[in-house]
């Protein structure tokens, strides 16, 4: 799946992998920059891309699987409803992970 250019793998610090569509992952500005494949220099495009862009895989050592799962759900939710003006359902999550989720949102800029 990791070789499929439209899918990317997001790995949590405790080893959970989440495979999501690239367009979903790019709802996060941070992830979008990590995976940016349009970078280029006078020496060619490969040289300017980071490891993450080349392998379509990003590891977040400081984010736990439980949080990353919720983040992926949120990214999907954001992509689904970003362009709808009304009738957007609430995005629910457990109160107990709210602080960690908040920090992840700050980190991932989403």
């Amino acid at each position, binding site marked *: 799946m990791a070789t499929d250019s439209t899918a990317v793998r997001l790995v949590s610090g405790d080893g959970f992998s989440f495979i999501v569509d690239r367009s979903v992952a790019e709802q996060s500005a941070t992830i979008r*920059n990590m995976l940016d494949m349009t*970078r280029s*220099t006078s*020496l060619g495009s490969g040289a*300017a891309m*980071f*490891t993450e862009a080349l392998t379509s895989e990003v590891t977040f050592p400081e984010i736990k699987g439980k949080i990353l799962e919720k983040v992926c759900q949120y990214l999907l939710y954001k992509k689904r409803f970003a362009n709808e003006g009304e009738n957007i359902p*609430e995005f629910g999550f457990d109160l107990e992970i709210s602080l*960690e989720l908040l920090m992840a949102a700050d980190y991932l800029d989403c």
Partner: protein
Amino acid sequence: MSYANKRPGGRIMPARRLTPNVDPEKQFEKISQAIEEIYKHNASQLSFEELYRTAYGLVLSKNGPMLYSGVKQVLETHLKDRMYQDIYPHIEAAGSRPTSASCEALLASVRLLWSEHVTAMLVIKDVLMYVDKVYVKAAQLPTIYEMGMCVFRDQVLLASNQLLNGKVVDAIMFQILQERKSASEVNRDTLRGAVNMMIELQDPRQLRPMYDVYVEERLLAETGVHYAGVARMRISEMGAPEYLRAAQADLDTELERARDYMSPSTTPGLTNAVLENLIQEFTLPILRIPNAGLIEMLHQRDTESLYTLYRLYKPFPSSIQVLRTCIYDHIIGLGKKIMLGVESSSGNAADDGSQKQASDVPGIAARTAMALRWVQEVLSCYDVYDMMLKQSFADDQDMRNTIKDAFIEIINANARAPELLSLFIDDNLKNGLRRKSEQEIDHLLERCVLMFRFLKNKDTFEHYYKLHLAKRLLFGRSLSDDSEQSLVSKLKVECGSQFTLKLEGMFKDMQLSSDVNREMRESGVAADIGFDLNVSVLTPTFWPTMASSGASSGPRVIAQETGTDNSGANSSSNGSGNNGMKAASSGILIPSTAGISTAIEKFTSHYLRFHSGRRLTWQYAMGNADLKVHFRSRTHELNVSTYQMIVLMLFVDGEQDVSLTTEQIHAQTRIPSESLSRHLQSLACGKYRVLIKTPMSREISPSDVFQFNSGFKSPQYRIRIPVISARNNVETEQEKEASQAAIGQERQYVIEAAVVRIMKTRRQMTHEQLVNETVDQLSARFMASPKMIKSGIEKLIDREYLQRSPDDPRLYLYLA
């Protein structure tokens, strides 16, 4: 995000403590190395996440300032090194004697460093986006990318020991100059790159793009100098069309260059710099280039060059003003030339005939022809300029006014313009339209109306137009009723219904008359008369005053008679269509034969039966008659005027070989002697000699004896005997004076009426105000002279319409 509060008692898990206590210096080291790697295009070896996380950690552990200044330092060091490695050699090379190659090399190296720096900065700013987002925003610093740009500017372009900035600008200018002189090919990509760099970087002091501060000003100044030199050289070598084409080409090249590798903001300034030196500086010299200037372009109708001229002059109002003045003067010159041309050919014509005699028939005809030519030439001249206005001057409003003013000037410079225009129209409506299509006719009429619009003395035109129209209508000489009507309606649009009221009245009279005549034929009254009678009943206020009309006043209707007379020397029979204006008061005696008097009486009683209370005054001067005349060899039909008919009928009576002297004829007819001699002349001395005069001379004296010429011969059956001066010609001096007097009188009335109208609304006015207002109101009809207005005011004071204010002698009061 919102949370679902499913378990109200639930505990919020604490956030992990981030960034274990690692030395911030070590953390930064990671980033510093990464930047070097990025410059070396080794990003693929790096983990974005790791770098991002590192920066994130540093910012959260309040090490933002250290990170920010550290990055700045890394960039500075890097660029300083590169300067020495890559750019320094080129500065030395391009230093003293720039060549295209050395400039190119310098620019290329700077551009390369620049583009690599930009690429690296785009990556670095992404990696450090958390710094931008959190620390930079809070500390109100330039973003990482902006900071990178400033570092480049300060370390590379403005590095105090290198003066690189000036050298880069020099190199750009040098390359542009090379290109202008097409001395060598230059690499536009390099230039574009260098220019873009200058556009992107801000000048630290002026807070404008460095391009604006260093490049644009220089470019404009050097462009100006370059083209000033070019212009001085070309002006002495080229004709205006060539010069203008070259200027346009230069402008196009410069704009193309600007579009290709300059800032779009430079375009207006550049256009100005080019045109100011090529065009504005030489506004007048270009127009006056000998043998190839404005005048030649106008003459050759070089619409294309003129269009170029117009477009290039357009940005400079003062140049356009000069151009307009030149065109104006040129048209005025043309007007004078037309005038001279017409006059000199009239001089020739006068030489052919024996010197100027006002009554000389061929002389008058020739002068009329010339008058027509004057109108024709002025109009075709206008056509040319109208065409050029549209094709070369983009229908420019000011230019249109210039051309209009010039034509107003040349038309009104000819004091006889109103008369000539009316004659021109007369000629066209009688003869000229025959060979023309409807469109051409329409165009011609449009042009006539246009010339009319240009006339200052519209009332003078009206005077002549009425005169000429009257003759056309009464003699039935107009070719097209439609054209007549259409012209009048055009004049109406131009001047309002007041102006055409009388003209329309004339048409209406003609219409009513034909109704009356038809009615008469249908009612059987006409049958008793024995010949066709056609009477034109005219309302005197509409029609111009004919020379012989009676002096009677009061309501009256002038009847004009058209009839068919039986007459002839030996015997007579029917003809048709006769038309005579009769003046009862002037007491013309109609010979009793042939029932003309009866016919008149019958018509009168018939007419008055339907229109009681009117008075018919018969005018013979404008009528005509068809006579069947039996000569010895054959019978001819003669088309003659009513006066001629009356004279001829004296010879019908009874015995053969009637001999009458001029005096006798006068006594028997009471035709005014001046008209009589003209008519006798045309009968006895013209081309068709129906009467024999003894002695045979051209002049008519009272004792001359006339006899019927029964031996008259002509190949045609139908003969029109022209009456001298029945045609519409240029007026002789006496006629002109009479017209002037009539017009002057009319004007006096109009002025007085206007003064009263104005005073009635204003109640009181000073002399100046009143005069100005009057001139203003009447300007549509004629130019009222202050003198005439003054005399009008005085007359009104005499008649107690106005009075001078007792307090202020300059003030007039209206008396109700």
